[in-house]
Structure formats: C-alpha cells, structure tokens
C-alpha cells in the first residue's frame, strides 16, 4: 500500500525507469539485464555506506567520516594481508575497528554534546590521516580467496552477472530493513530523529541508540571498505575522497529528510541506483564529460529537496 509518505521513493523509482527507458531508446545494448546488474556490482560499496548513512540521517545527525573509514579499512586490510595475516583475523579486526571508531564518535556527540558535523569532520581527518600513515602508496592485494570471491557468482539470462558484491549488498539491505522497521532499535532511531527530547522523555535510550547509530554507520563503512578492496584488489589511502557527499546525496534523493525522522532504507538504495544510472548513461554517451555527472547529481538533489519541501508544509517557517 503506497501512502503519501512513500511519494519521494516512488518518484525516484519512476525517474530511474524513465532514464533507463531513455538510455535504452538511444543506445544499443543499454536495455539489458547486464547493465542493470552492473549497477549493483559497481555501486555496492556506495550503497552499503549510504544505508549506514541513512540511519545516521534518520536520527537527525550526519557522518562525514565514511569515505575515510573506507580508505583506512582498505589500506589496513591490504597491508595486513601482505604481511601474511589470515583473512579470518583481518576482516573481523577491521570491522571491529570501524565499530569502535563509530562508537567513539557517538560518545563524543552524545556525552559532550558536540555537533555531529564537527565530530565526524574531525573523525574524517583522523581516519584519512591514519590511512596515510599506514601506507602512502597503493598496496595491491594478492590472495587466493580474493581471486575466488571475485569470480564467484552466477550468470542470469541476458548475460547478467550476480557476483559476491551484489549478494552481500542484498544481505545488508535485508538486514538494514529489518533493523529499521522490525526492531526496537529502528523505532528508537526514528523517534530520536523526530524529536530528541521527546524521545528521551518517552524512555527511548538516547545514549545507547546514538552511540549505536554512529557505530553502525562506521561498521557499514568498514564493510564497504572491505567490499571496495575486493572491487579494486588493492588498498589505497586516498580512495573514496568525497564519497560521504555521494552517500548523503543518495540518502536525500532516496527521500529521507535531513532533519531526520522520516525516510526509507529502500529509498536510499533507489537513490544510489539512480546516481549509478546517470553515470552509466553518461559513459554510454561517450561525448559528455564526466563532470556532467556532478551537475546532474546536483540537480537531482535540488529537485528532490524541493519536492520534499512542497510536501512538508508543516515544516513551515520554524527555520
């Protein structure tokens, strides 16, 4: 049942379909399962990051450190693998570091009442700096498991390939949707985003939830970092610069209000897909420069934000 609250997500999906149709009409080979599934493979790490960002934004906060966490995770993973550490130690370790880092930021934000923007900004500098300290150069990853997982997957009719990235993305998606809509944690997140003080008065555990939200966001960013290391078979300290902005754009295009309290995980996924489709369209065109992607994404954010404003008259003039 589609209510008016679903409108932004529906609009995103409609736009996606429209652009897909336009591309199919214009370019040979656009209308194929392969192009569609490639969107998932190529943008899986961004989607996972953006889903974590959704939780943060739903609670009324923001997390600028995710791109740096991806880079740090990637480069640390690469360096440890090169040093001979086994994967079953490396992966849990980097995920735990991500989780702990996010929890630390959450503590600063909640207990010292520092603004999320500044704390995560400092976190971004810290993680990027630590990544550079670990290794200034790109570190290649050569591991049998990496080769195996990168080729793992199955073919669908139409030469579409569903690989490990897509499968992991699907798992995270299901987990995130369950967490957001079928678990108390999700309810708490929406409550805090709606009105922090009222939530506290309603016995929502604001401290635990806030710390949990930022821990979750950094955890998913670390997971995305692992996925990115599979995608590039390397770790690089300067990777994913500016990715946090792409994640925020995806969340906004997916219909989540930046003030918090309203939005859907599925919307974010649709936002990522739409942004990926724009990139695909431009690369099929070949003659448009890639900075057109930036302009189009900017315009999309503008359109969606305006739609949100028109839809929310009761936000009114309290700005």
């Amino acid at each position: 049942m589609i209510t008016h609250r679903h409108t932004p997500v529906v609009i995103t999906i409609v736009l996606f379909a429209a652009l897909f149709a336009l591309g199919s009409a214009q370019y040979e080979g656009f209308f194929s399962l392969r192009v569609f599934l490639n969107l998932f493979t190529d943008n899986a790490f961004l989607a996972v990051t953006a889903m974590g960002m959704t939780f943060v934004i739903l609670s009324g906060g923001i997390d600028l450190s995710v791109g740096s966490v991806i880079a740090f995770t990637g480069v640390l993973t690469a360096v440890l693998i090169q040093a001979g550490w086994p994967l079953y130690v490396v992966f849990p370790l980097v995920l735990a570091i991500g989780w702990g880092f996010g929890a630390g930021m959450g503590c600063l934000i909640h207990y010292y009442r520092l603004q999320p923007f500044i704390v995560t900004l400092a976190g971004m500098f810290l993680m990027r700096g630590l990544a550079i300290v670990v290794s200034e150069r790109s570190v290649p990853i050569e591991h049998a498991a990496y080769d195996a997982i990168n080729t793992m997957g199955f073919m669908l009719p139409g030469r579409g390939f569903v690989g490990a990235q897509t499968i992991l993305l699907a798992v995270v998606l299901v987990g995130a949707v369950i967490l957001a809509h079928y678990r108390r944690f999700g309810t708490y997140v929406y409550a805090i985003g709606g009105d922090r003080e009222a939530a506290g008065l309603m016995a929502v555990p604001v401290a635990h939830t806030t710390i949990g939200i930022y821990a979750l966001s950094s955890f998913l960013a670390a997971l995305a970092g692992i996925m990115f290391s599979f995608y590039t078979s390397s770790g690089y300290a300067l990777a994913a610069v500016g990715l946090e902005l792409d994640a925020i754009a995806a969340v906004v295009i997916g219909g989540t209000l930046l003030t918090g309290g309203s939005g859907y995980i599925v919307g974010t996924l649709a936002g990522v897909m739409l942004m990926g489709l724009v990139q695909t369209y431009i690369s099929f065109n070949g003659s448009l420069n890639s900075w057109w992607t930036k302009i189009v994404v900017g315009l999309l954010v503008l359109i969606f934000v305006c739609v949100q404003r028109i839809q929310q008259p009761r936000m009114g003039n309290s700005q």
Partner: protein
Amino acid sequence: MSRPLFSLDAMRRHGALWPLVALGLIWLVIFLVSPGFFAFSVQDGRILGGVVDIMNRGAPVALIAIGMSLVIATGGIDLSVGAVMAIAGAVAANLLVGSELPVLVIMGAGLCAGLVAGLMNGALVAGMGIQPIVATLILLVAGRGVAQLLNDGQIITFQSEAFAFIGVGALLGLPMPVWFVFLVLIAMLGLTRATALGLFIEAVGANASASRYAGISVRSIKLAVYAIAGACAALAGLIATADIQGADANNVGLWIELDAILAVVIGGTSLMGGRYSLVLAVIGALIIQSLNTAIILSGIPPKFNLVIKAVVIIGVLLLQSSIVQAQFAMLRARLAP
C-alpha cells in the same frame, strides 16, 4: 570608572581567551622548533617574515571564514565556498583571456559571480526553507562542474601583471591578500557592528521565529548572509587565481570549506547559530595556518599532518565544551582540600 581594554577578564568574557592562548601556544612551538622563523626583514619594499607568511597563506581561509561566520551565525552553513572559488576564478580567467576589459571590471565580474552563487544558496535556504547543508551541497557538487564547463575542462592560464598583483603584489610592505583580509574584516565589522545588522543576524540564529515576531525580516537577513559568503568566497577565488595566473576548477579551494568552518568554530562561534565574532574567526584561520606551518617546520613527516590536525581539533572542541569545563571545575574542587 575605567576598565583596561585588554584585561584578561575582558578577553575571557569576549571568548577571545582560549583562541589567543591556542595561537600563542602554537607560535611558541614554532619558535622552539625554528627560532629564526619569526625574524623579519624588509626587501624590495616587502616585509618578509614568519608572521606575514602565516597571514598571507591563511588569507583565503580567513576571507571565507568571515563570510562563513555570518552564515553560521544565522544557524546555517555554506559548503559551497570552494566551488564558488572555482567559478569566480573561471569567470575571471575567461574574461582575462577573451577580452580587453580592465582588471577592476574583471574583478567585479568575478565578485558578481560569487554574489549570484550566494544569492542562489540564499534563495534555496530563505525562500524555499531548504536545509542549508543540502542547499549548499547542491552547489558544492554541481559548482565545480559548472566551473569546468566554463573552462571547457582545461586549466586556463593568462598573463596579466595587473591581475596577478592581487595575489602576489604588496602594498606598504604587506602582501595584497593580507590587505584584502583587513579590508573585508573592517567592512564587515562596520556593516554588522556599527549598524543593527549584526544584532539581527544573531537574533535570527538564536531564535528565528521569535525574530520574525519581533519584526525582523528573517528571509532578507538569510539571503544577505549567503550573498556575502558567496562574495567573500569569490574574492578568495580571485586571489587564488591571481596567485597561479590560472584557473584550475578541479583543485582550487578543495576542502577549504572545512577549514573555514573549523576556523569559525575554533573562534568560538557555535554551529547552532547566535553570537559570532568575525575577529575570532580570523584568529581561528590563523590558528589553522599556524598549525600547518608548525607541522611542516617541526620536520614531522607530512603524512602525519591530518592525524595531528584531527587530534588538535578534537582537543579544542573538548576544551570549549562547557561540559568538559564543568568536569575540570569538579576535578579542581575535588583536588583542592
């Protein structure tokens, strides 16, 4: 009854104590690491020395921090300033290469471009009520694309001694960028403190609805501060372009918005809006630039730059936090018999 103007008490009340202490500490570190840094001399009509160097390199951040202070004071934020720098530089470079207009007119054109960008941001925030982060995010993402469009994807270079003077010239010994910071600072101080505008800006940031009921035109104020921020960013962009005699839409002002926001926050202005201080924002910019210089001079490998910066920022934030100060007070009370 007369009170000394520069008493410690007056500084603490004004909120200037901690920023000045931080600046002093960093300069002390620089002095310990490289005592000759602060020596100055006069050559070819220019003053050469550490302090002037810090002010010169920190000028773009300081300019942007001035505009950013006003925006933050209204409870907003402007993430697009780097992109506006790129746009202004692109406009100026194209005019310098493609026309014979006088330098002042070209500067004016660049400033107008910044003003227009700022007005766009302001229209989105004030007119449509869109959140500042998102509204300025749009220009942040799209703005460099627009600048690239203007430049046709190239880095446009030009030869114009007159225009380059803005970035590399000197007047009465001080570099031009430093003069621009002084000029803009004094102009903005005059505009906001000698009139009621500053009061209105603080009121809008403190409580927008109450301000509206009190008769302040919240929309006009918000529109105005974003326009000013855009113009300041444009000026910084013109200086950067003049410095290299080229317009590089990809790299100019990259991430400078973060440094500017940091400068404003270090200067004591809260991101929630309300009271602000332009002078402290400029001091914040000096702190950031001094920190960069200290790291370079200390011989610490540059790869540790960001980590040190992050630790210092968190330290400053914690020191400024009233909760931490309360904890210190409790600790002091418990330790004192």
